[in-house]
């Protein structure tokens, strides 16, 4: 897997903020927790993309992972909601104000167990939401029970073996119609950063399953979500590079081995394939890769599926351009004449 560090960020970004405007409060997660690394990448991605933090909302359910929105983007409004229900809260928040950019952080328990229903239905709506699952195969905050993404046969710290098949959230997301689906690893800085930037550039729902080892309860031998195991079994689908719309560098590449995806905002996603048989524009090919790597006990990471121009839920609902939250009474309360008309029909 790729381990080279991301390019050192410039002092200030295109909206002349420095990185400190993207940081959060001090983490209360365990030292070494994968979730902390993900928070750092989120800070980098939003900083480097020059997103105005005041436009961003951070949402989560409950869990160690769900605590992490407090550890990035302090200038943004945050909402630590209830267990497994981040998607509905994010949906409502976005419907109220379509100008917002939403990042939702969940866990494999928060999403795979109690929250699987809201996950399923949020994938169908294609609302502009960056949906991140910090996936450690266990319930960290409640002290390490198996979650639905724990692999069959994976061992818990107390030696108990998981007896149920793992659920592959990426495969489900693809099956359910998510328009951008990726898997990454908290330890792969470069890949994760590129994936996050792509999600920021994407219009519609981005689902990102980030394998994020729990050093306290699931980092031992016999666990298939330990740092060691994941490092050994990470199968990157290819080299990812992301060129934001505001950096119009014309990169030349050999068409054969590299695919260039034009994002809705004009950014470009460059995918240099390592495996030929995967086409990120084709659901079936993405599913095949997932099934085959899973059979081999490997994690296929990178961009699994992307459909940059799919209609988003705002278009589906044909909303006015202004945020609904800011519409004046004149536009939301009909006139006396309307009431009279209605009364007439009932006389």
């Amino acid at each position, binding site marked *: 897997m790729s381990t080279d560090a991301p390019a050192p960020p410039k002092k200030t970004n295109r909206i002349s903020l420095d990185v400190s405007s993207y940081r959060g409060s001090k983490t209360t997660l365990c030292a070494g927790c994968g979730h902390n690394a993900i928070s750092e990448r989120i800070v980098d991605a939003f900083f480097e993309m020059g997103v105005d933090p005041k436009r961003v909302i951070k949402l989560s359910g409950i869990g160690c992972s769900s605590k992490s929105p407090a550890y990035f983007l302090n200038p943004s*409004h945050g909402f630590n909601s209830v267990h497994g229900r981040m998607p509905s809260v994010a949906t*409502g*928040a976005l419907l*109220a104000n379509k100008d917002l950019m939403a990042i939702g952080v969940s866990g494999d328990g928060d999403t795979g167990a109690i929250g699987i229903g809201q996950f399923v*239905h949020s994938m169908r709506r294609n609302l502009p939401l960056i949906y991140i699952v910090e996936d450690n195969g266990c319930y960290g905050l409640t002290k390490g029970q198996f979650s639905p993404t724990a692999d069959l046969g994976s061992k818990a710290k107390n030696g108990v073996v998981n007896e149920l098949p793992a659920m592959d959230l990426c495969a489900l997301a693809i099956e359910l119609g998510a328009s951008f689906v990726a898997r990454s690893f908290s330890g792969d800085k470069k890949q994760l950063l590129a994936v996050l930037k792509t999600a920021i550039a994407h219009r519609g729902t981005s689902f990102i399953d980030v394998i994020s080892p729990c050093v306290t309860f699931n980092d031992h031998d016999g666990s298939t979500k330990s740092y060691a195991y994941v490092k050994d079994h990470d199968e990157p689908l290819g080299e990812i590079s992301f060129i934001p719309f505001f950096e119009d560098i014309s990169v030349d590449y050999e068409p054969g081995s590299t695919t260039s995806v034009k994002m809705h905002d004009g950014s470009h996603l460059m995918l240099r394939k390592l495996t030929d048989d995967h086409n990120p524009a084709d659901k079936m090919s993405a599913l095949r890769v997932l099934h085959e790597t899973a059979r081999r006990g490997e994690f296929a990471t990178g961009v699994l599926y992307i459909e940059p121009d799919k209609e988003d839920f705002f278009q589906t609902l044909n909303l006015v351009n202004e*945020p609904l939250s800011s519409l004046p009474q004149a536009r939301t*309360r009909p006139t006396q004449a309307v009431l009279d008309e209605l009364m007439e029909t009932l006389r």
Partner: protein
Amino acid sequence: MSAPLSATEPQLSASPSRIVNDFSIQVATVNGSGSQTANLVLLRSIFQMGVPVSGKNLFPSNIAGLPTWYTIRANHRGYIGRKKEIDFLIAMNAETAKDDVMSLEPGRAVVYDEPLKLDALRTDLVFYPVPFDKIVAEVCSEAKLRRLVKNMIYDGIVAELLSIDLAEMEKALSRQLGKKPKAMALNMAALEAGKKYAAEQLTKRDPYTVAHMDKTAGQILIEGNAAAAMGCLFAGVTVVAWYPITPSSSLPESLIGYMRKYRIDKTTGQATFAIVQAEDEIAALGMVVGASWSGARAMTSTSGPGISLMAEFVGLAYYAEIPAVIFDIQRVGPSTGLPTRTAQGDILFAALNSHGDTRHVLLIPASVEECFEMSMDAFDLSERLQTPVFVLSDLDLGMNTWMSQTFTYPEKPLDRGKVLDAAKLQEFSGAWGRYKDVDADGIPWRSLPGTNMPAFFTRGSGHNDMALYSERPDDYVKNLDRLARKFETARTLVPKPIVRIEPDAKIGIIAYGTTHWAVEEARDQLREEAGLVTSYLRLRAYPFTPVVDEFIRQYDRVYVVEQNRDGQMLSLLRMDTDPASGVRLRSVLHYNGLPIDAKSVADGILAQEKVG
């Protein structure tokens, strides 16, 4: 609001041989048989003749083929609650005809499908056999339409027997069918055929008739759910998330209709609203909470089962102080109970909803007019108080057709509550805190995302008044005490009870919601038939206002009348009003799933008054 007690025209109902504008008609049929049009035409035509009416549909929990009873009450005094006795039965359903007939009081009238031979059942009733199939065959050539058209025939029969103007029926019919000339013609033919048959073959032997009055001038007919939807429209609702459930569905579905018509931007053709059919009630309330949190006027509508599922989010919204308007169109419990039967059974569960210490604002409409008004109040209160507000309607109010004066356009502007803006931020001069009680009313100032105001992190109760994470005992207590203070503020803002003090009253009555109509009528019965004068307080909201205590203190015995088994409002009164008055409170309960009727109220009170 209250039934007009004056101007009862004695001369009208004077002669025993003639009972004018004071009876109930019941159409016994099966659902899915298309009788709804005929029933509404019947209801409307009487209404158009100036006679106060109400229409109640008693339907089964399935889609087609099971017994359904539609009851129309005409009453010159304006009583529009349910009347227990049926005076005029139209027996179209073979399956229930026998029971329907046997349950009538002597002297009542029965129109029935001839082959059913119901006249053999009793000798003390007036029977009108009608060969529906024969008549319908004559007016309707298309066999498959006959099942529907048949219904208009009984309207024609009734028009003749109760002397309802055919012109009014035609007018009412055209409202239903609008510009469908072919259907109009066919149905009119059926109406006339029915009327003709009755005129030629039946001799009037029952006392019931309809005569013109002036009691409905300028009034409207509407269901509570449609009225509530209108209220939401004029409340400027912007985000609606719902999940279908009887008897709530017709509220959001009416709202969808209104919004599509009146809330599409003329110039762009775009919507100034988002309505989402969620995957379930948990998601529906989650969306409402998220939307309110980022500044929308958001609502959901459901019934008991949905309220149970929403409990966790309700608690979060209470503690995180997020507005949410929740309509609960009550039905009897539990989930696989009787979804098509009415009740006032969610009072305690809604007031105390969710784990931990919680108290919620309840608005309880009694009329379609209040459905309209309280929908607007609900949004204003919810945003002002930054807390969930429940509107507790019920199946009887929500799905049945009620007479009402026309609704008045709201003159007071929307109250969006304490939302931080640049000017207000100035005042705080840098010291704004999300949960600071700067106005000593328990209500803090909130900032909205995307407005360039200072951000904060929303959590349940684990925060200090700067919205920073805290597990400190003192922060927690401070938080809970402020929430309690905020509830005291709510007490001063919710709709006040309606009180009718009778100087010479010996007892008091407390009721709420649809129970009101039975109580109004029962109070007249008690006065006129038992010489028992009563004072009356109608609760319209929780928390209770001080007048409730004052009212209770005035009477040794105060009867709390409600439509549930456990005396839920009485329990809430015992919890929250002066304990010294606890002994004065007594229950009159009605919980068989049918709307409560005046007689049950009067009897319930008299029974207890006898024993003293």
